[in-house]
């Protein structure tokens, strides 16, 4: 028995615990990894032919679908965070000198890891469906950086939403806006083709610069402006999500 806490060890234990949760819940695996692939098939084969985006549709849609791969896994994280807070296990950790941050770190790291799997699956699927990219290894590296920043931001925001919700059921609802936002961005069709109001919204919401910067990088035509805007959004959302999570955590736990 020790009275000193070891944040790293504790975090590792929590990550392992959360990964087991993800792997043992078939619904989580389906929503997180398979659903985005299904959506990709739907858009590329069923709907994509009807959209005139000025290029091969799979090339247009892939950056947006990568973001969908991130957001589809978030409901599970929100529910999992909330269950920890509402189902008593948090009290067990609290009376044990477990380092406070470890619980949050566990959720964030586990979600990032499962997101990586979903992202790898969607990129693999894109290549299988004919996606081709002239991007250099450096472009790819930059693209991965932006994807990781977006996943990190979305995860912290989700942890905060899950923490703030009253019940696991309502926690899964709080992330619905995050699931819908990509559709009102340039993910599926260019913002210019949307109706009045939606167009302006799509142009100014965070998903659009993230998607546009990815699209530029993967097409081999990187745009510094979009990348800067994307990273600024990600940094802002990450910070807000982190602070909100921490504040709610210390209030509830």
């Amino acid at each position, binding site marked *: 028995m020790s009275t000193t806490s070891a944040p790293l060890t504790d975090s590792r234990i929590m990550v392992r615990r959360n990964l087991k949760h993800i792997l043992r819940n078939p619904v989580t695996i389906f929503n997180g990894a398979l659903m985005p692939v299904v959506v990709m098939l739907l858009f590329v084969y069923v709907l994509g032919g009807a959209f005139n985006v000025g290029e091969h549709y799979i090339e247009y849609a892939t950056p947006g679908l990568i973001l969908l791969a991130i957001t589809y896994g978030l409901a599970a994280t929100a529910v999992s965070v909330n269950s920890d807070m509402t*189902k008593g296990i948090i009290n067990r950790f609290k009376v044990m*000198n477990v380092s406070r941050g470890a619980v949050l770190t566990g959720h964030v790291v586990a979600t990032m890891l499962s997101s990586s799997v979903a992202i790898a699956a969607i990129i693999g699927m894109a290549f299988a469906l004919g996606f081709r990219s002239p991007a250099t290894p450096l472009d790819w590296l930059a693209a991965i950086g932006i994807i990781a920043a977006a996943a990190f931001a979305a995860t912290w925001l989700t942890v905060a939403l899950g923490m703030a919700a009253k019940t696991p059921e309502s926690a899964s609802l709080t992330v619905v806006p995050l699931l819908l936002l990509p559709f009102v961005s340039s993910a599926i069709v260019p913002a210019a083709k949307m109706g009045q109001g939606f167009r302006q919204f799509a142009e100014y919401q965070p998903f659009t610069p993230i998607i546009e910067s990815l699209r530029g990088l993967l097409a081999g035509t990187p745009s510094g402006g979009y990348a800067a805007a994307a990273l600024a959004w990600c940094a802002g959302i990450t910070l807000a999500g982190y602070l909100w999570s921490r504040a709610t955590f210390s209030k509830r736990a």
Partner: protein
Amino acid sequence: MRSSAIAVSGLRKAYGDKIVLDGIDLDARAGTVFSLLGPNGAGKTTTVNVLTTLVKADGGTVRVAGHDVATEARAVRAVIGVTGQFAAVDDLLTGQENLQMMADLHHLRAGEGKRAVTSLLERFDLVESAQKMAAAYSGGMRRKLDLAMTLVTRPQIIFLDEPTAGLDPRSRRTMWILFRALVAAGVTVFVTTQYLEEADQLADRIAVLDRGHLVAEGTPGELKRQVPGGDVRLRFSDVVVLDAAARVLNGSAVDDAALTLRVPSDGGVKSLRALLDRLDEHSIDVAEFSVHTPDLDDVFLALTGHASTEAIAQ
């Protein structure tokens, strides 16, 4: 005299306008079982939450194992174990993984942790279900696993908050046996319950909590002496027999409308036999016969002047 494991004085706690604990004083000696008895809403869980560092008190001092819960929370947490009202087990982990997680979080060395897990699984009769997810466990098994998780680090003081609420009588008895084994090993146990029988079975001392006030404190024997004893209820076929019985059994209470007679009794076999023999001698036929022993409701009525259920309605 043994030293205090838990010493509480003037503990106060309010949530908004609602005063939950209004000046509580408790003293639990090391190596004994102390029971806090009270109905739902009396403030039992709040008391446990303050004593286990989960909730800050508004006033008063609380020392657990000699450490102040407000200023030395870490030292308190290092020596206590808590099993709450709802089994705090991880549903998606197996029984073994739940225990292993506790060993890991306490930074036990690998070999030491494994030994602790194995011996707890055996001691709590969970070996067969060790590889099953806790979600598949029955209520009784979940409580056992919960308690086993609390014991991984061998705490000196264990808090049990209504540890058998919602369990069937058989599982409840199993839990009692496990609690007694803890006490035999020298652990101090602080247990809350709404069952007088449970407090009676387990505790060395009982404190009765009602609406945030302690209304009585003492050994189970002392407490029961403050309560009207049990009685035997006899129902007769008509008023004539009822009156005849009332004449034979002095000191009994007559209820004409219900045709019943309440005779004070300790409920023991000897006194019951004497009572029945006496009725036989006078050839009085009894239509119905029941023995009533004091329960929490009687204790409450006697100590507070209101039934325990009224506290819930508040």
